Each structure stands twice: as C-alpha cells, then as structure tokens.
C-alpha cells in the first residue's frame, strides 16, 4: 500500500524540476531575439485597409491638439491607412519609450513607427531601425536632398538612413535688450559680436563680482548644455566626431583651446571658483521654474534653441543673434535639436509606415510649426508659415523675420548627433570639461582621457555591430 501511494505521488523535487523547465522554456521563448522579419507583413484586410502603429513621444497639451490634426490630414490623403496611436505620449502601457521600444524590437513585435528624442544614427548603428534609403529614393517629399544636410546626417550611419528629422530647432544667442539699454549699449543682431573675444569684452560690461561671488553676469560659458558641445567645437574650427572616418577628435588642438578659453574666462571674469559660480545662479537654463539666471536677469545673454521664444514669457525684451566664433575658427555655426521619426526594425508595414513618417516630417510639420516653433528640417517648408503663438507674442512681421532667421541659420549648422555613441560621448565630455573648469585636470589631460574613453567605446560599438 505504502509503495503504491509512493508510486503515484509526484515528488517535490520532480514537481519543481518540471515547473522550472516549463517556466524556463516559456521565458526563453519570450525573451529570445526574434528572427529577422521578412518586412512584408500581413496582407491588408479585404477592404485594403492597413492599420499602422505610431508611438507618439509627445505629451504636451499643444501637441495633443496638433498631432490628431496631422494624423487626420494624413488619413484623408491615404484612406487605406489608419494610424493607431496614444495621444498621451509614450509607449502603450507606459514605461520609458526607448527601453520599451528596444525590448519590443528584441521580442519581435515593435511598433511600425516611433518618435525619437535621440538621433536615429545611434539606434541605426545598434541595429534597431529600418533603413529607409530605398523609400526615400522614390519619395514624393522626403527625398535625400529635401532636408538640411547636417540635420539629415543625424539619421545616417555608415551611408544608410535610419529615420527622418521632423524639426531642426536651431540654437542662437538670445540677449536681453532691456539690460543692454540700461547699460547704454545699442545692440542689434547685425552689430552683435562675431568673435569670442568680442563677446567676452561685451560680457565684461555686465559682470559684477562682490566678495568673489557673481552678482551679475554678461554671458556665462554654457558648460552644462552638452548638446551644444559639437557647435562650440566647430565655432573654434574643430570637430568632435568625424563621422566620415569614424573617429573622435576630442583632444584636437581646437577643442583643447576651446576648453582653455572657457576656463580662462571663468577665472578672469567670474572668480574661477567653479562651485561658487554654480551656486550663484542657474546659468544652464532659461526656464523660470528652474530658477534661471537668464530669466531672472542675472545674465544678459544665453544660448538656446528657438523653442524658448514661445515656451517662455520673458519679463523683458529680447533679440537673437548668431553665435560668435573662437580664435581658431573662421565662421559662425548653429546647433539644432531635432525631433525624429523612424521605423523600428521588424515593423510589419514598412511601405505605409514610410508614407506616414514622410508626411509627418514634411507637409505635416508645417501644421505642427503653426503651433510650436520647432523649425522644420524639411527645406520644402514654406518660408511664410509662422507659429501663431509667436505672432501673438511679437507680432506678425517680427515673427516672420525671426522664423526666417532660424531657417537661414540652419544653413550654417554644425555636424552633430551623428555618432552611434553620442550619449556616452557627451556624458564623458561633460565630466572632462567640468574637471577642467573645476581645476581638477588640465584641458589637455582631461581631453586626452575623454578621447581615449570615447574612441574605445566607439570601437567596441563597431565591433558589436
């Protein structure tokens, strides 16, 4: 009897083994990288209707009003394509957009299209996005030459294009004309300094130190704006990343000279104590909720993207100008922070997906631009379409003039956002720059170290690819 019972019992160990095997197999099946998609996708439904998904990264109220308009325009143009998206932004079910996107690509069920905040070049090198060159060759609007060259380069990796830039909000120098008037300095965009030396001399006119503490600044070198590092490098005749040769040039003489210039500026104009300068004001933001030095009129000049023209209600009159160039540079350059659209690898409807991202990044962005001053990256955008919110703030004539200034400035854009290790590079460079400004290392030592680290990371990424 005892023997019979024992024979029929499942032992605890046996049960655990079976459960473990079942769970392991299930988990492995769920997590294993999927086989590459054939990219043909399921056939359209009987009525020819195709639904494609769009992971919308935007969530502000204005965007929630504009996005449905653009989607509606597209769906009217393409009655057989329906866009499935969540107006609230982010991936369905929540979570970090990038993390969920990569997990979904690995699991074989990505969205058809996605909005990205980081450059497609980075994700393209990672193998996460579908190359769209063949689509672009036959496109109506998004042809290879239809975008500002350097802005489109943010989507390229090793000759292939992995997405489209929708916007290219250019960066420029904003200056507080009220403070200039108080000082009796007549300044216009045309008379604004064109070199760093002139800028520094102008900045000194405003700078006030009391017991070594910065009470008022002219222009504070923007060490925390990492996205603009490539621009400062170009302004001094350098380059941070040479995409054509897949080589970082962080420790070039031009870049070392740029950082030394900033360090000397902090030393001679602002007392040189990096920590005290940091405590004296938030020099890295224009937004009032971040206690911005520029907004609070502690500084007279500030570099940022054109979006702050409507994002912020400045309590003073302002003007914009092009960025001055450094002692080793010869001309101005602008920076830009695009919004990108891309097609994750493994999407089921690449043809329809391309039509959607093409429309959004070209004609659709004109609709967008009427609400938000993110300058279009598409060169075909009308020079006469102006953001209504900007018109409301500064009047139609000045809004149009500002719009054209930012559009034209994109012709001087610097190469940026074009490295597969951009995030790592900018983080590393920021640490290096801060170590120089904080007098922990010399500019040469810090930039040599940063160069070695970033180039090693790049090579590791290339090996992985």
């Amino acid at each position, binding site marked *: 009897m005892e023997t019979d019972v024992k024979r029929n*019992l*499942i032992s605890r160990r046996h049960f655990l083994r079976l459960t473990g095997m079942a769970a392991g197999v299930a988990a492995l099946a769920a997590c294993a990288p999927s086989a590459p998609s054939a990219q043909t996708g399921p056939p359209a439904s009987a009525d020819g209707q195709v639904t494609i998904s769009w992971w919308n990264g935007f969530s502000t109220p204005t965007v929630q009003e504009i996005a449905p308009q653009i989607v509606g325009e597209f769906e009217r143009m393409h009655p057989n394509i329906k866009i499935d998206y969540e107006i609230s932004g982010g991936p369905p079910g929540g979570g970090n957009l990038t993390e969920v996107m*990569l997990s979904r690509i690995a699991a074989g069920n990505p969205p058809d299209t996605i909005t990205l905040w980081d450059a497609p070049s980075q994700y393209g090198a*990672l193998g996460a996005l579908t190359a769209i060159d063949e689509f672009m060759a036959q496109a109506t609007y998004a042809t290879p030459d239809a975008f500002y060259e350097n802005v489109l380069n943010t989507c390229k990796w090793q000759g292939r294009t992995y997405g489209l830039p929708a916007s290219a909000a250019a960066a420029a120098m904003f200056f507080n004309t009220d403070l200039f008037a108080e000082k009796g300095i007549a300044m216009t965009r045309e008379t604004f300094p064109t070199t760093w030396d002139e800028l520094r001399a102008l900045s000194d006119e405003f700078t006030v130190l009391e017991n070594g503490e910065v009470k008022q600044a002219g222009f504070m070198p923007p060490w925390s704006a990492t996205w603009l590092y490539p621009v400062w490098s170009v302004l001094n005749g350098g380059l941070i990343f040479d995409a054509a040769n897949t080589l970082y040039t962080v420790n070039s003489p031009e870049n070392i000279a740029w950082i030394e210039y900033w360090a000397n500026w902090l030393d001679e104009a602002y007392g040189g104590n990096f920590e*005290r300068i*940091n405590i004296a004001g938030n020099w890295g933001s224009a937004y009032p909720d971040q206690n911005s030095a520029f907004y609070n009129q502690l500084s007279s000049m500030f570099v940022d993207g054109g979006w702050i023209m409507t994002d912020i209600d400045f309590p003073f009159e302002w003007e914009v100008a092009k960025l001055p160039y450094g002692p080793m540079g010869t001309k101005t350059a602008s920076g830009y922070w695009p919004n990108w659209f891309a097609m994750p690898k493994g999407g089921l409807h690449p043809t329809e997906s391309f039509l959607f991202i093409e429309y959004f990044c070209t004609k659709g962005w004109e609709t967008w631009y009427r609400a938000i001053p993110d300058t279009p990256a598409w060169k075909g955008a009308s020079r006469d379409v102006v953001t209504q919110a900007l018109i409301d703030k500064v009047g139609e004539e000045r809004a149009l003039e500002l719009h054209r200034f930012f559009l034209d400035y994109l012709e001087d854009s610097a190469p940026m956002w074009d490295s597969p290790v951009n995030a790592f590079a900018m983080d590393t460079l*920021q*640490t290096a720059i*801060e170590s120089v400004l904080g007098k922990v290392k010399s500019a040469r030592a810090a930039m040599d170290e940063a160069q070695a680290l970033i180039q090693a990371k790049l090579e*590791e990424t290339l090996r992985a690819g």
Partner: protein
Amino acid sequence: MSRKTRDNLRAYLFVSPWLISLLVFTAYPMLASFYFSMTRYTIVRPPVWIGLENFRVMFTKDDLFWVAVWNTLYYTVVSVPLQMLVALFLATLLNLSTRGIGFYRTAFYLPALVPAVVTTLLWMLILDPRAGLANAALEAVGLPKLGWMYSVAWSKPSLIIIALWTGVGQPMLIFLAGLKNVPQSLLEAAIIDGTNAWQRYWRVIIPLLTPTIFFNLLITLIASFQVFTTAFVATASASGASPAGPLNSMLVYMVHLYRQGFSYFAMGYASAMAVVLFLVLVVLTLILVRSSREWVHYEGASPR
C-alpha cells in the same frame, strides 16, 4: 489517484502562481544575467559570447566603475550606521507611553510611505543652493551657503540626508516591534536588582534587541548598496548639473549600471556589473550571518 496525491497536487496548484512568477521573473532573469555578463549584448542583436571580457574591462579599464564603487561605499559606510542609530533612537522615543503617541508613530513613519521620487524632488527644493530652505537656514545663523547637490564635497552628504529621511521609517517600525517584545518581567527584575534606566537599556534591552538589529542591518546594508532612485532622480532633475553629479560624485553603482544598460546599450556589461554586485552582497551577507553568532542573542537559545 490517491487522496494524498490529490492533496499534494492541490497544494502545488495553489502555490504555483508564486512559484512560476519566482521562476520566470526572479530566477530566470538572475540566471540570464549570469549568461549575459559573459556576452556583448545590445538588446536588439543576439548576444555574442566574449567570456570574461566585461569583467576585465570593468576592473582594469572603466575608471567610472571604481568611482561608482567608491561613491557607493562612502554612501553605505555613512548612511547605514546613521539610519540604524536614528531609527533606534526614534523607536525608543516612540516606545514611551505618553499622550498622543499614536500620532507621533504615524507622523514619523509617514516619510517612508511617500514615493522616493516625490521625496527626492522635495529635498531638491530644500537643498537648492540658490533659493532652498537649507541655505536660507544656514544664512540665518550666519553660516556660509553650501552647494549641496552642486558641490563635489556636499553631494554625497545630500544623498545621505535624503536617504535618512526616506529610509528611517521602516527600520524604526521594526525596532519598535522589537522593543515591544522585550519581556516586562526582565525589566522588572533588573529594577529590583537596582539598575538605572541607562543600564537597563544597554544590559537588557539592547541584547534582547540584537536579532532585530541584525535583521535591520542586513536589509539596510543591501538597500544602501542598491541605492538608485534618489541618486538618479536627484541628478536627472538638478538643472544645470552633471548627469551624475559634479565630477561624478553622485555616480553610485546602480546609476552607473543603469546608464551602461539603458543609455549606452551595453547590456552585457551592465549584467556583469549586476553579477559583481550580487556576489559582493552574498559575501557581505555571509560575513554578517557568520558574525551574528558572536553578537546576536536569541531568547531561549542555549549559550555557546
């Protein structure tokens, strides 16, 4: 099928949701981490076996790894004893019989209920070097303003202050439960023996509380090695500050791991870091458990 078999199956059926979730969501990721730690893995592409390369890079090439180790050790060495002492002190106060003690117990525990992100953002406002309450208070008593999160010297103490605020509630509650379990008869016997309050605390209460101290120490130690939310939120929301604090002074281990995995897509390397942390915590736990034989006293246990 016999009744015993049916009973066993039924029992396993009832525990199976927990068991399966343990295997799928805990055991499998842990085992997978061990495998991924030996690979070059960027999430999207299949992992490529590279043996111990990630560990070699970690120990010999990645300077930031050692910065993160140092920052985490600093944080742990200062914050764990501090949290334990403050929690024990508060629990002792809350163990007193006084009017409104229920209110105080609730009030002191409340910070532990507030999400860490909210608490960190609140403390960011308090510690804002330009307009925060902390510097206003320092100025009011004639002391110089501090840089807090913007200062290499003060960024880690800032994290520790926030950790103290958020982390004390849980061990305090467990200490309070431990204090409530101290037998009244032993305290009365000590009084009859002529001890004063201080002697009773050190000679009777603390020895009886050592199992609770051991548990709290273990949990707080592990949590402090895994500190993430406070450091991540603080550095991400400090406008104008570096992504890991000034000169990486707030780059704790888990933030470095997260950046490697999700910002730089080096998931194999991040897994290797996770494995190292796991092994360190296993060793520390074993040491603590081993040492507990010397200083933890269980009521009713036979003397060694």
